């Protein structure tokens, strides 16, 4: 009771009322608390109207090719503190436990049943339509639901898409957690990150996998039972990353299919101890989605596997971190794509022969733009290594000051038509 209405109402009491701290009188008989509780009372159905229109807008924004959306996505969440289920299963949790999503202030909690039924119905419809919620169903709660899921999957192991694998991982973690704590698996619906970590680290994990054939697909996707914990840890955004050995043990297909948000949060330290021989085995689809700061620390032999476009898309400041000796080992075509973004200092450090080979892949205009950044001496060294044909095209595009500083021997090979236009 906060005594809001009894004359002694301090800031602390105000904070408690605002937070809806139990016992602060928010839902009690204090009139002010009642007003706040009413303002934040359970949502009425009419207040949720317009959902389909909003969803239409949402789908319109998200109906883009998967590759594009993935590429654009960077890490979104600093490690989720709690792990849970997704929308459909979420509704189950709501209806089963009366736990509400909108918990900040205790607002909307009492309507959890009504909304849960709505969400559940909608979700069930989706499952029937798309049949893509096997993982959710398995994670649902009851043995009955699990059996249904297993039946649906026909117990045939298959490679799961990352989103489905993540759901299956959640289900697995909950079952393992239940096994560890001796709880009824049906009551374990939400785990903290620590709980998930415990479950994945536990010795019970293996037994749960063996006892429950519906996890066969997850094992197949992770490339073996021993990889499941690491794979799930990655997918579920756990703070503890797989040991470097664990990462490279994952099958290329699983690594390639990891969501962008998972790959981009892998820190350089996770890959640093991995031997180069193992790094080069990592699929380009995985490597190319690592964050720029991780990429620049990779050995050149690994970087050469990457499409030029991936490297060229890196921010100039990231590229500046690439050592010239690493750049020098890139294929000329890849390097050519990077040249326009490289800082002058890096350009100067590149061996003239390498630079010339890369420049030869670029248009005369692009070469002129790059060469113009360099000193006359460096330019002369590079130009001397370019074929005469490209020199003829490049020289007229160079700034006059640079051309006049070039050695006569270099220019002498140029045709008179070009020379006549030079200062």
């Amino acid at each position: 009771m906060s005594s809001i209405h009894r004359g002694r109402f301090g800031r602390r009491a105000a904070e408690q009322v605002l937070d809806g701290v139990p016992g602060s009188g928010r839902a009690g008989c204090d009139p002010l608390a009642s007003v706040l509780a009413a303002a934040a009372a359970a949502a009425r159905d009419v207040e949720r109207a317009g959902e389909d229109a909003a969803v239409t807008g949402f789908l319109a924004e998200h109906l883009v090719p998967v590759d594009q959306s993935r590429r654009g996505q960077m890490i979104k969440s600093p490690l989720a503190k709690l792990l849970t289920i997704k929308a459909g299963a979420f509704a189950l949790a709501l209806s089963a436990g009366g736990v509400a999503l909108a918990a900040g202030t205790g607002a909307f909690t009492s309507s959890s049943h009504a909304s849960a039924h709505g969400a559940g119905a909608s979700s069930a419809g989706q499952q029937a339509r798309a049949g893509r919620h096997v993982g959710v169903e398995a994670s649902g709660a009851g043995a009955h639901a699990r059996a249904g899921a297993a039946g649906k999957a026909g117990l045939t192991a298959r490679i799961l898409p990352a989103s489905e694998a993540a759901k299956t991982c959640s289900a697995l973690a909950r079952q393992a957690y239940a096994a560890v704590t001796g709880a009824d698996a049906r009551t374990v619906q939400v785990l903290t990150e620590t709980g998930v970590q415990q479950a994945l680290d536990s010795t019970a994990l293996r037994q749960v996998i063996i006892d429950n054939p519906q996890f066969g697909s997850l094992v197949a996707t992770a490339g073996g039972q021993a990889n499941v914990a690491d794979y799930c840890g990655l997918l579920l955004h756990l703070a503890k990353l797989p040991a470097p050995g664990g990462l490279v043990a994952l099958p290329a297909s699983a690594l390639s299919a990891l969501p962008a948000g998972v790959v981009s949060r892998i820190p350089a330290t996770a890959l640093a101890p991995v031997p180069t021989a193992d790094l080069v085995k990592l699929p380009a689809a995985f490597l190319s989605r690592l964050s720029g700061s991780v990429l620049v620390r990779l050995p050149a032999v690994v970087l050469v596997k990457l499409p030029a476009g991936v490297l060229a898309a890196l921010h100039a400041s990231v590229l500046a971190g690439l050592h010239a000796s690493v750049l020098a080992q890139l294929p000329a075509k890849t390097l050519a794509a990077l040249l326009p973004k490289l800082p002058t200092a890096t350009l100067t450090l590149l061996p003239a022969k390498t630079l010339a080979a890369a420049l030869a892949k670029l248009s005369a205009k692009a070469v002129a733009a790059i060469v113009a950044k360099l000193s006359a001496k460096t330019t002369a060294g590079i130009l001397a290594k370019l074929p005469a044909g490209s020199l003829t095209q490049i020289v007229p595009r160079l700034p006059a000051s640079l051309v006049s500083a070039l050695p006569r021997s270099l220019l002498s090979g140029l045709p008179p038509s070009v020379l006549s236009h030079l200062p």
Partner: protein
Amino acid sequence: MEPTPDPSAATGVDLDQPRDNRAEGAAPPARAPLADLADVVRLAQDGDEDAFRVLYRDLQPRFLRYLRVIVGDEAEDVASETWLHIARGLSSFRGDSDGFRGWAATIARNRATDHLRQRQRRPRTVSVPVEELAPLAGADDTAGRGLEMVSTDAALALIARLPRDQAEAVLLRTVMGLDARAAAAVLGKRPGAVRTAAYRGLRKLAGFLGE
């Protein structure tokens, strides 16, 4: 009956603690799934329709109530606009569940501000039938009879009588479910300023009730 400030409480050090820590232990089950929202947000960012629906069901009632106080009867229009912006910007959002609600509230507030600017009209016109306000009139009568005596509309109408900064501070904390820091980020103010505004708002509300 004007409440008097409690000087000892005004310096309470725990006010700066994140609410979740403070509520630890005694937290009602309703608090725990807060972080679930982070998971749902992530799924929605990946284009999951169900997850987006969950976000909508959580946020839309909050938006409507907050916006009714700010833009009055056009709350629904502004809320629709807000959702378009959320759908558009969702993939660029980074943060946790609290951060998400704050981010969404910021969008709603910006839409409302734009709306008000365009219409060049006075904010906060909540149309509430007179009879709905009746339970508020006799505060003493409502005491002891539970919160069902005060309808949500009437409560919002009462909050709408506050100066805008106080009304917003109270709404962001109670209706949007933000802590002082998140509310401060939405309002572009310091958390202390938002706490003060909310505190003054509550005192004023208590004053209205005592009228």
